């Protein structure tokens, strides 16, 4: 039985950067503002996971931080258990700011800078305990710390507790960062490429750990990955959704199997093509050609008109340049592409031939099979 209010609700959130001061703008030297996140909405339930996949600059980190209250949106709302986390509007909330703050945590991408260099593991893990479980005395805190260290596989706990970060390997540091977030007993953890900095052989271990510990604390994840293979593993295990982001928008979102095995949006297809296949026989049969018009991403401060992907999309047509596709339901997923709508004028629109790009491969739209 699910409750009616989703655990976390991101409602048409926008985050804009780079608004220069008045004087600079008057002098005509202001920076163009960049909309890192441009109107994104999604919902998250308990014990859920939403994986954000996309290239750098697509806004996934900014969106994740906005979702856990570390980045204030310039427009839109983020609601935790129905309450606006920034305390604006007429939110009938009975949760204090403190409770909301505790419920939303983060694990960073770079294990090297996620732990304070001057603090031992013990001291680092004491912080969440003091914040969230303030009633514990130092003996109880120590027991909780040791218990958590053992759960994340750092044994003997007593020895690890006294180590400084520079005495831990990358994988170990990342596990401590996970422990620190979990000790807050949060409802949502934003894992920003939490496994990308680890060696490939350690990634499954880390994701398994996150999955096991999720049960203990009943936490949901907003998981970022630029890698489809990681995304598939983690999302499928928990049974959540993958969403593909491009230039600040979600272009496709759905269950892991659907999005990975049967991608509809051309960008998702390109990402899938780009994911290296382990099986060398498969690698051979994959076409050698880039399924995109150009390899380089457009300038985020000046996104293309209409459908933002049209400058790189092999299937782009005239209408894509002028109209922005809405989010359309297709089977159990949502796609922002006119091709998912059989009756749309897209199918009558002429094909786009030239595309200006100053670097990368410039080609005419490769005629792919639909």
């Amino acid at each position, binding site marked *: 039985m699910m409750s009616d209010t989703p655990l976390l609700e991101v409602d048409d959130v926008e985050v804009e950067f780079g608004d220069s001061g008045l004087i600079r703008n008057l002098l005509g030297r202001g920076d163009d503002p960049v909309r890192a996140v441009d109107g994104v909405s999604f919902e998250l339930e308990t014990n859920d996971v939403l994986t954000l996949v996309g*290239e*750098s600059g697509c806004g996934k980190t900014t969106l994740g931080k906005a979702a856990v209250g570390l980045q204030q949106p310039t427009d839109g709302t983020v609601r935790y258990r129905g309450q606006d986390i920034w305390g604006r509007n007429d939110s009938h909330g009975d949760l204090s700011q403190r409770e909301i703050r505790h419920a939303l945590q983060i694990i960073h991408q770079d294990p090297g800078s996620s732990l304070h260099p001057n603090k031992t593991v013990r001291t680092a893990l004491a912080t969440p305990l003091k914040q969230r479980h303030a009633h514990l005395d130092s003996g109880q805190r120590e027991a909780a710390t040791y218990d958590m260290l053992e759960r994340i596989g750092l044994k003997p706990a007593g020895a690890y507790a006294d180590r400084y970060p520079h005495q831990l*390997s*990358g994988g170990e540091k990342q596990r401590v960062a996970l422990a620190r977030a979990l000790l807050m007993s949060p409802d949502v953890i934003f894992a920003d490429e939490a496994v990308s900095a680890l*060696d*490939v*052989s*350690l*990634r*499954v*271990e880390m*994701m*398994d750990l996150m999955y096991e510990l999720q049960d203990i604390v009943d936490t949901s994840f907003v998981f970022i990955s*630029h*890698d*489809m*293979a*990681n995304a*598939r*593993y983690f999302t*499928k*295990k928990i049974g959540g959704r993958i969403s593909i982001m491009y230039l600040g928008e979600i272009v496709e979102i759905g269950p892991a*199997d659907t999005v*990975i*095995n049967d991608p509809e949006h051309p960008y998702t297809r*390109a*990402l*899938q*093509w*780009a*994911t*290296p*296949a*382990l*099986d*060398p*026989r*498969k*690698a*051979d*049969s*994959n076409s*050698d050609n*880039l399924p*995109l018009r150009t*390899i*380089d991403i457009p300038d985020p401060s000046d996104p293309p008109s209409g459908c933002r992907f049209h400058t790189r999309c092999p299937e782009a047509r005239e209408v894509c340049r002028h109209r922005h596709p809405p989010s359309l339901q297709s089977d159990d997923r949502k796609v922002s592409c006119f091709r998912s709508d059989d009756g749309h004028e897209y199918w009558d629109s002429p094909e786009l031939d030239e595309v200006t790009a*100053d*670097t*990368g*491969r410039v080609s005419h739209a490769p005629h792919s099979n639909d």
Partner: protein
Amino acid sequence: MTTTESTLQSRRRSTNRDPIMTLRDVTVTFDMPRGTATVLDSVDMTIERGSVLGVVGESGSGKSMFASALLDAVVDPGVLSGNITYYPKNGDPVDVLDLSEERLKQFRCEAVSMVFQGAQNSFNPTMTIRDHFIETLRAHNRDPETGMQRARELLSDVYLDPERVLDSYPHELSGGMQQRSLIALSLILDPAVLVMDEPTAALDLLMQRAITEMISDLQKKYNLTVIFITHDLPLVSSLADRLGVMYAFQFVEQGPTEEMILNAAHPYTRALLRAVPNLDIPIAEMKPIEGDSPDSIDVPDGCAYHPRCPLATDECARDPPPFSDVDADHVVACYHWEQAETEIPYSLEDGGEE
């Protein structure tokens, strides 16, 4: 598997027995306050001319040290011992470790060139890309005119606009463009061998794929021998003709790529295949590898992998296993490799559906 058959045949070119470099018993040690660290242990390898060798290992397995050894560029106070021989197309074999400073400088960049991870740190931020090329050309007494013509050709081979890129400073280029410029720069002196240490590490998925395709094209065009070092097994599986898997500072298995991936012999390789996230193996079959990789000072006796290996016996804990032949070109350092298939199963089906 119809059209793929012919491409598979072309992969077998590794058996044409024309080595360009051989390594025999190459070892690197460091004396530390805590003890002597062996960061590369008795490496034996033959690299075929015009082939692509993938060196796969976790961080801390010694793969970067292997790259440094190939150029005799091990940092002080490391000690490099053993025998490394380079066979130029025309001329006598060269003992790399025996070269004078002058000849060694020539050797690096002209015979064997290296591309490091993280292009940003390889460029001088105060010089334009053009300056970098000119500097390299001058340092090796090449004519700048002809050299820059070649530079322009190389830059367009890596899908960059030569005029735009040459006049830019490194920080003006994106990560992908920097990495491609670095690859072009490493080819300016027409080396025979290109060593690449995690060249796509910090890059996005699409750029990563584009660069691996590009490396394949460059290899064919300039007849390069490429040594591609990475921890990302799927990345190199389509590119490499042969793979070498490193564990605890040694090579534990070497062989043709396809055979190694479909039928790995060493327990570690099999475990690695199961542990690496990819789209081909069903999720239920993926398992992390138990335990941790060894400290360079404290490598286990006998077979370095035995504490983590389900097939380990007393023999494994005592004596390091020699290389056994699995096949013509495929060797493995394990006593029990024949049982590995049953003990550590994995299958490369279409891993998507479940």
